[in-house]
């Protein structure tokens, strides 16, 4: 009886490199578990295309460790059961997972990923994903973004002790991580958080607007999807609730600028994110934008492209290092990855991968919606780490 174990057996190959699952002497298989058909389809599409672009370029440049990347993509449509099936199928024959969308999915598989020692980059930034050696959350976690966001409000938007701040957030760990952050900051700064929790299926934020208005909030934090953010901002504008909105990076999409709510967004909306926006004037970024547009002419550029790209690069770098150490087993790849203290893809802030239980960075950009800018945003404030964020003990798991 022979059951597929997917290449390498942990033994040393011809070129003296120890190989593990997903690595043969000609190929290295990396698997992408993404969402093309579910709620995060837009994210999934950009991320995946960016990553495919990345690995193609590496292969074109001769590959890595004398091998070429083979990219396998599975679309789980944001369904935990499908995601699980896809993982079970791919894990035995993959060397790493440069993209895994959906914190429920990753959370559900956290233990198995850890047991498999399979380097995985989740495309979600919830604290629940920290604490596993094999799982690398890129950049900041949602809570850090919110902490930095609150400090931004205090420093630059005149929010002061005793004020009320609204926080509209999704049920689920995206929203709840964010809430942890805002609560922490508020508590430290003597602000009061007015919570409004919604579900991903909610569409109309009028009731929430009314509630915020009644509570007399001076600013509103937004940790929901673009739709809900738009409804909130638009509704608030009409209700004469003229306050700044600070959103997590998943709460905005350039498509929103095509809607009536546009003006309100341009006026009052700010986005906190660890990853640099595609519109940023960096050599690497500009090249990426150009290449991407060349390869996918009729797709809009957005900020997920750089994050996908850098995630791919994280995996690639780890594998290169592992190759130098002549150990392409999963253990080897993990060791190589975790050895990096200042990983810098040339896209914004450098990251520290040494501790699984600490986020790779604490610095967030403040972006502003902008019609003209690529990806619909431009940088308002260079990455900064508020001292609140400095001292913040990130909850793990």
């Amino acid at each position, binding site marked *: *009886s022979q*059951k*597929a174990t997917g290449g390498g057996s942990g033994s040393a190959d011809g070129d003296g490199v120890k190989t593990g699952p997903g690595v043969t002497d000609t190929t290295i298989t990396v698997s992408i578990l*993404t969402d*093309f*058909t579910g709620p995060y389809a837009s994210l999934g*599409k950009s991320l*995946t*295309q960016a990553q*495919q672009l990345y690995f193609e370029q590496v292969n074109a440049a001769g590959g890595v460790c004398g091998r070429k990347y083979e990219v396998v*993509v*599975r*679309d*789980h*449509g944001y*369904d*935990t*059961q*499908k995601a*699980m*099936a*896809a993982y*079970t*199928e791919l894990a*035995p024959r993959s060397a790493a997972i440069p993209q895994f969308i959906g914190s*429920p999915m990753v*959370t*559900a*598989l*956290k*233990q*198995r990923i850890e*047991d498999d020692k399979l380097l995985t980059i989740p495309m979600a930034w919830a604290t*629940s994903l920290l604490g596993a050696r094999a799982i690398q959350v890129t950049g900041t976690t949602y809570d850090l973004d919110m902490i930095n966001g609150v400090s931004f409000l205090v420093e630059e938007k005149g929010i002061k002790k005793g004020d009320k701040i609204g926080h509209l957030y999704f*049920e*689920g*760990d995206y929203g*709840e991580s964010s809430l942890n952050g805002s609560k922490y900051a508020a508590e430290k700064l003597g602000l009061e958080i007015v919570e409004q929790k919604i579900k991903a299926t909610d569409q109309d934020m009028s009731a929430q607007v009314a509630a915020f208005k009644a509570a007399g909030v001076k600013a509103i934090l937004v940790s929901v999807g673009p739709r809900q953010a738009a409804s909130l901002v638009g509704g608030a504008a009409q209700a004469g609730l003229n306050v700044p909105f600070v959103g997590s990076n998943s709460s905005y999409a350039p498509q929103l600028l095509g809607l009536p709510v546009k003006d309100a967004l341009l006026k009052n909306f700010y986005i906190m994110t660890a990853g640099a926006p595609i519109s940023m004037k960096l050599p690497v970024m500009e090249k990426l934008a150009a290449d991407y547009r060349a390869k*996918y002419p009729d797709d809009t550029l957005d900020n997920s492209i750089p994050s996908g790209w850098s995630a791919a690069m994280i995996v690639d770098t780890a594998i290169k290092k592992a190759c130098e150490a002549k150990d392409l087993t999963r253990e080897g790849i993990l060791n190589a990855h975790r050895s990096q203290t200042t990983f810098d893809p040339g896209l914004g802030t450098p990251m520290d991968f040494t501790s699984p239980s600490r986020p790779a960075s604490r610095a967030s950009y403040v972006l502003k919606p902008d019609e003209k800018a690529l990806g619909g945003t431009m940088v308002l404030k260079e990455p900064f780490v508020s001292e609140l964020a400095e001292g913040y003990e990130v909850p793990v798991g």
Partner: protein
Amino acid sequence: MSSTAGPGRTVRPARLIAWLAAVAVLVAVPFYLEAFWLQTGLFAMSAAIGAIGLNLLTGATGQLSLGHALFLAAGAYSYIVFAEDAGLPTPVAAACAVVLAGVIGGLFSPIAGRLKGAYLGIATLALIFVGQHVLHNAGPVTGGSNGRRVPPMELFGLVFDDRPELVLLDVPFGALERLWYLGLVLLAGAAAFARGVLAGRPGIAMNAIRDHETAAGVMGVPVTRYRAAVFVLSSMYGGLAGVLLALVFRQVVPDNFGMLLSLDYLAMIVIGGLGSVAGSVLGAVFVSLLPQLLMRYGDVLPLVAEPGTGGFSPAEAARILYGAAVVAVVLFLPGGLLGLITRLRRAIPRVKEVKWAR
């Protein structure tokens, strides 16, 4: 349906051989198929158990239910709670979980006993939404949105998990391989039990309630109580399915038990064949396999394009084919897959359609 399987029916030798062959194959599977297939198979087994339960309710008793997913959740989560928090031995925990699912079904019986057809169907939707809300918000018990780890089942010293390592005939026996057999046993038991119920006194009463409530009452069937009882029974099946599913998942999150799952279950029993156990199993296998196959082999399908590039992505193709399958079966195979098979075998005389849900 119940009338075809009388108790104490003698098994023809040909049939017996067929059965033995089938069993042999099923036992051999883990030695040959890789994890993906075992897992898919286990999904199917769990689905089959759940579907049998739903079919007892919807097919045999004529009570539409869209809330089945809740009972899977109830089974899955309460297994964890009983095993982990209450520290019961896992088999006991599983049993308790099944019972608890039944109890929750029982709590619903004021509605389940009173409502009929479409009304009950939609009313049961409430179970899903309220259930989801509870799963997300009862953090201490349910672990909120992150869900909870599932303690592996342990039977007579055998742990249904990857560790401790176990190798049979130089095949590494991980969690899935081991669970495969547990799944088979549970499914077989569940199916046998359901067949017994359907063929026996309760089954006839259930069918009578479906076909003519008043007559059933006049013939001595306590209709309301019976409706509720069947609801409880089907909830327990849901619970058992949930426990098995949880063991396969190893970590359950609320998203596992959304409304789509309930709809899938309805699809299963219709595709398979209403009111019959074999039908439920067929339908379950079909519905669980189709999307998995399409996801996996999507790229080699025609019409299906590379992810990202314009055309149908595998998952989209899967969705559409799935929908088409549901439609096609009802259009062209009255009686579902089972109906097809039986008609091929001409085993049962053709039966006219009867209204069971109004």
